[in-house]
């Protein structure tokens, strides 16, 4: 089997006890957009997101990076959902980019329409982002998203994946993992929580559309997110980034654990970080320090039942999924192996 090359990043940051990140150790050109004085603050403070909201954190970094990459020539279309609601309580707005919210299921199509308008007007210097949560992307917005991929519209779609419908009160989506408690998959009965062998991987489906760029990212590695957004904005055509964003409210986790949970999701293998171009996998983020899935699960009340003795079969199923991901995407460096 051919080795999948490791993704872009040459310099790695390791989380320290104080959660600081060594941005200042880098050359100026490699420093994060967020670490610069002239960042655009496109999603500004004062919005109504919950404490520890992974989506607010991710959106801020993603949009600021896109603004930097496009010389501030950016328009954003937003699906209905938390990100829309907490940023634009009438008559206030937290956005300093031109921003439109139309419906729950049409952000990709609205984005495609904006891109078409800009092309018709010869304003292809202005770029377009469409964004939404996992429900607005993988479920109700899926038809429009697939259409946007199919037509290769010049839009970067960012899905903020918190694995359920948080805005409506934590109901299951097609991005909810097996065993997870949601309001519609309660931890009762002999297989508590969400059913296994359901759901879908939209990054893999996006790859099947052979679009120019697909990536997954996580809010524990915001440098990587900025890099992927910047790379995406350097490409024309349909692009897709799915960002893993813990939701303290919906997951029953501490607001202060958002970044830690993101890191553990990646390090246990449940959330692989990948990059793909034109349908081919071009990079993965290797796991440096693998952890058992239990380390990730135990910080979230939505999985509390999984850790009870009666439900070890669920814990094993989740570990098996992580193991499959690790194998499928070569997430762990083979010891002493040479390509």
């Amino acid at each position, binding site marked *: 089997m051919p080795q999948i090359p490791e993704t872009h990043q040459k310099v790695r940051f390791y989380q320290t006890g104080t959660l600081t990140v060594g941005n200042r150790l880098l050359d100026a050109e490699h420093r994060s957009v967020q670490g610069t004085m002239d960042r655009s603050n496109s999603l500004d403070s004062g919005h109504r997101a919950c404490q520890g909201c992974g989506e607010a954190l991710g959106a801020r970094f993603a949009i600021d990076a896109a603004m930097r990459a496009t010389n501030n020539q950016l328009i954003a279309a937003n699906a209905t959902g938390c990100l829309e609601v907490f940023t634009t309580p009438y008559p206030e707005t937290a956005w300093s980019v031109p921003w439109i919210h139309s419906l729950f299921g049409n952000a990709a*199509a609205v984005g495609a*329409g904006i891109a078409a308008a800009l092309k018709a007007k010869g304003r292809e210097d202005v770029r377009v982002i469409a964004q939404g949560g996992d429900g607005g992307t993988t479920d109700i917005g899926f038809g429009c998203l697939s259409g946007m991929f199919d*037509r290769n519209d010049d839009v970067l779609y960012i899905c903020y994946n918190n694995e359920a419908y948080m805005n409506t009160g934590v109901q299951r989506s097609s991005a909810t993992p097996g065993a997870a408690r949601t309001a519609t998959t309660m931890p009762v009965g002999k297989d508590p929580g969400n059913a296994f062998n359901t759901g879908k991987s939209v990054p893999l489906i996006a790859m099947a559309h052979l679009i120019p760029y697909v990536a997954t990212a996580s809010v524990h590695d915001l440098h990587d997110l900025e890099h992927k957004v910047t790379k995406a904005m350097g490409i024309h055509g349909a692009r897709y980034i799915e960002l893993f964003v813990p939701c303290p409210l919906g997951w029953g986790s501490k607001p202060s654990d958002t970044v830690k949970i993101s890191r553990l999701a990646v390090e246990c293998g449940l959330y692989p970080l990948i990059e793909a171009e034109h349908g081919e996998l071009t990079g993965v983020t290797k796991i440096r320090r693998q952890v058992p899935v239990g380390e990730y699960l135990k910080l979230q009340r939505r999985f509390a039942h999984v850790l009870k003795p009666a439900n070890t079969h669920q814990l094993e199923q989740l570990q098996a999924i992580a193991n499959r991901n690790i194998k499928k995407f070569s997430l762990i460096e083979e010891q002493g192996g040479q390509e």
Partner: protein
Amino acid sequence: MLKQIEGSHAVAEAVALCRPEVISAYPITPQTHIVEDLGAMVKAGAIKNCEFLLVESEFGALSACIGSSAAGARSYTATSSQGMLFMMEAVYNASGMGMPIVMTVGNRAIGAPINIWNDWGDSMSARDAGWIQLFVESNQQAVDVHIQAFRLAEQLSLPVMVCMDGFILTHSYSQVDIPDQEQVDAFLPTFEPRQLLDPAAPLSMGAMVGPEAFAEVRYLAHHKQMEALELIPEQAAEFEKIFGRDSGGVVKTFNCDGAETVVVTMGSVIGTMKQVLAEMRDDGISIGALTVRSFRPFPKETLRELLKDADRVIVFEKCLAVGMGGILAMNLRMALKDFPIRVHSAIGGLGGRPITRANLRRMFEKGIRDEMEEPHFHDIHMNIVERELEREQAQRRSGSIAENILQDVGVVAAAKTI
């Protein structure tokens, strides 16, 4: 320039003359020829600076227009029937957000049972959606009203639906005067959006509005439609100056003055009616007609003024509010509530049932005798209805109504017409 031309092609040429910048559409019979022709024109470069989006659904089609309109592009789509229902969430959104999109509706029945032929069920399903709805009676008027629709939409920052009878207009060939580009340019100014997604002046569109302001937003939506009632005739008058045709306005009368009986309808059926009414007047019957061209906004005052002296009104419409009756009739009764005028409601032409001179005359005569049931189902075959009702009475598992009836009338014959 005079052309012998299909209705759909005429509409495509009219839309092209309006210099659209984004066209986004999903195919559905009988709208297809319009967007096929526009697609070919864009691909051939006949429409300059225009993008044509081949979308995955009607919901996507109108959503893309919402995006393109917000980004300042003159935007157009077209649909029919189920397509209208599939895009319905975006239909309300487009008007709520004040996007001046123009959409042609090739009017077609809504299923089940699935039916591709003409009635107004699709447009009527969106009658409260906040769009301006203009019904046309001929392909010439379809051309003329599309040109006015863009100007009206952009002036008010509201979307406009141009409703034309599917097949009867969309697929029929007739002589149409296609205007010159100079005429259209003189009538239709460049699109200056009221709100624009622009990095040079960022704004947020589509904010959540709670109880503190929602009622005011709805009030203003209604207010804007009331403004349109004045604007539509003004624009029609200006259109007539440039193009030399009376082809717009909120209503059109045909020998209404002093008529004891006035038939009120919309769309293309007035063509057949005019012949019937002329024959009836020759026979000494005092009867005229009126077509409602603007169904939304509904021109209540104008109708009151025009109909106040009539003894009776016969409303003929190709749509039904199931469980209530005639939709146009309901609206008209509301307009005439202060007058002692008998308003009869006739519903016909559903799912493409032919409307003939003979059956129209029988129906009008019944109305004049004030013998109409409420509502009156025009040219309905009661024997078929009764047979099905008996079947349902006789056995619990009586099966699907639509298929039972097809068997009664002869499924082979039905299949042949499709």
